[in-house]
């Protein structure tokens, strides 16, 4: 009796141990590349942000001086302001266009698939290519300005969209929006297709128009998606890099600088890798802070968002 019951647990333990080993082997590749590329260098960045590292070997501990320098750096503050303006733009313009496109698509049957593909095409085009497309269209010598004046409309004749510091940031944001909003249409549409049709029928019985249907049924029903995308918009707006770097490199005279381009310059042209690491850590903190703030509002203050 004792003999027979003693054997299976030992075997089972062995099998459990072997099962654990297999499990670790299966997840090992993911963990190895992740630690090597993300976690390891991420932690090193935190360390280097407290040093005066030049990007090569020299790294002396300087405590918080990179961070205090950041706060006093007019370039950093201007870039932060541009990121905030960028956030507001992307929370308003592409979100509205995405909601409008998705709501209209959800109400038609014929051509829905075609419109969805057309709206989504800019999103699959590489950033470099869409930046190039728009650089040409906005070019003061061979773009829309000269084209209009050929037609006798000299409206945009002397407008240099990407070369004029007053409007360059808006132009870059406009170009980024061209690629971005169609993605939002597709996501919002997928969320809207999950809404119970009986809700709309009930509203129609009450004689609600399209606007009231959108406001009272569609928007509340897709609120989780809407909030998630708003959250992502805030995070991505602080990390924007590609379009600014390709189109203006932060210029003219810093008028389109964002945190990422300031960081890139510090790291790779000014040999201030410690300072750049501090900006990188700030960016990660902004992302984390946004998520935590959202969770705090939802979980602790029980905001219904």
């Amino acid at each position, binding site marked *: 009796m004792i003999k027979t019951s003693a054997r299976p647990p030992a075997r089972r333990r062995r099998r459990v141990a072997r099962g654990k080993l297999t499990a670790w082997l299966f997840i090992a590749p993911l963990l190895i590349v992740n630690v090597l590329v993300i976690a390891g260098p991420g932690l090193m960045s935190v360390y280097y942000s407290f040093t005066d590292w030049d990007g090569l070997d020299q790294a002396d501990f300087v405590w918080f001086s990179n961070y205090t320098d950041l706060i006093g750096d007019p370039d950093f503050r201007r870039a932060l302001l541009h990121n905030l303006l960028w956030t507001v733009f992307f929370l308003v313009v592409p979100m509205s266009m995405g909601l409008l496109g998705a709501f209209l698509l959800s109400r038609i049957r014929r051509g829905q698939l075609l419109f969805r593909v057309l*709206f989504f095409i800019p999103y699959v085009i*590489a950033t470099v290519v869409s930046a190039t497309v728009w650089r040409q269209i906005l070019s003061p010598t061979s773009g829309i300005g000269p084209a209009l004046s050929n037609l006798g409309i000299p409206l945009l004749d002397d407008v240099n969209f990407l070369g004029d510091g007053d409007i360059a940031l808006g132009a870059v944001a406009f170009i980024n929006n061209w690629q971005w909003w169609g993605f939002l249409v597709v996501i919002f549409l997928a969320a809207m297709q999950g809404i119970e049709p009986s809700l709309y029928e009930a509203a129609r019985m009450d004689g609600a128009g399209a606007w009231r249907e959108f406001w009272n049924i569609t928007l509340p029903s897709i609120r989780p998606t809407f909030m998630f995308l708003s959250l992502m918009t805030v995070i991505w707006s602080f990390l924007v890099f590609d379009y600014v770097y390709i189109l203006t490199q932060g210029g003219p005279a810093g008028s389109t600088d964002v945190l990422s381009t300031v*960081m890139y310059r510090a790291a790779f042209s000014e040999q201030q890798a410690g300072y750049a690491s501090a*900006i990188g850590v700030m960016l990660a903190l902004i992302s984390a802070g946004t998520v935590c703030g959202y969770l705090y509002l939802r979980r602790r203050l029980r905001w219904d968002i």
Partner: protein
Amino acid sequence: MTAVPALDRGRPRSHAKRRGSRRTAKHPVAYLILSILALYAIGPMVVFVLASLKTPSEISESPLGLPGEFRWDNFATAWVEANMGAGLMNSVVIAVSTAVGVCVIAGCAAYALTRLDLPKPGVFILYLLVASSLPIQLFLVPLLSLWTKIGLYDSRFGLIVIYWAIYSPFATLLIRSFLIAVPKEYEAAARIDGAGEIRVFTRIVFPLVWPGILTAGLVAGLQAYNEFLLAVTFIQDSENLPASISLYSFQQGFSPNWALVSAAGLIMVLPVLALFIALQRRFVEGYTSSGMSG
């Protein structure tokens, strides 16, 4: 001979059209706004395609007009001058290796998370969520220094490893959601028959979840093909440059040759567009799950 079938086909088509226009008439404003939005999305691409077939002087004379004569040789010139041939080759190698690697890495990890005896899978999932939301900017500078030290800087393989790391977490979560939907009884039956883990995975599980794996691979491959920040940072040698960076250097400068730049850009975009239009449902599915995971 051609006229008769044309007439024959003409009637039902016009009938269908009439029915269509009646349904369209239900939402004229919706269709109008949607058409304007579609024009905004596609118009710039049309201008771009036209520019790639013009001469530079035609572009500056009438930027939005039709070309006098279609200059297909712009593509041949751009292929060589902008180094797009080599760039495209590098990009395809990078995108395919990224896609395959991400599928293997994420497939195995998702399998371990859902099927194998992994202690505390919740902790791993939390780590994946955090890792996939950390900004590249956080680890970019030390990563470059590390890659230089271990000889992975300026190599396609080095860039591919980075893509594996940053695209695997999302792919793992995506494939995991497919695996959860597969009943475990199938595998239990195979294990009773004495099949090993690898056999169970390749014979039983994989055939059931391959749509999820394909979607994850497509999304990762496309992201790698289009990626800019890491490519411009980690590749220096012109032999290894992906198409995105070849195009980036080619379009720089105050007044580039827009005809050739457009042709070079189209060379980069056409393979993606063809793949997207062929597999658009799967692409949309993949991106939708990334946008709705909230």
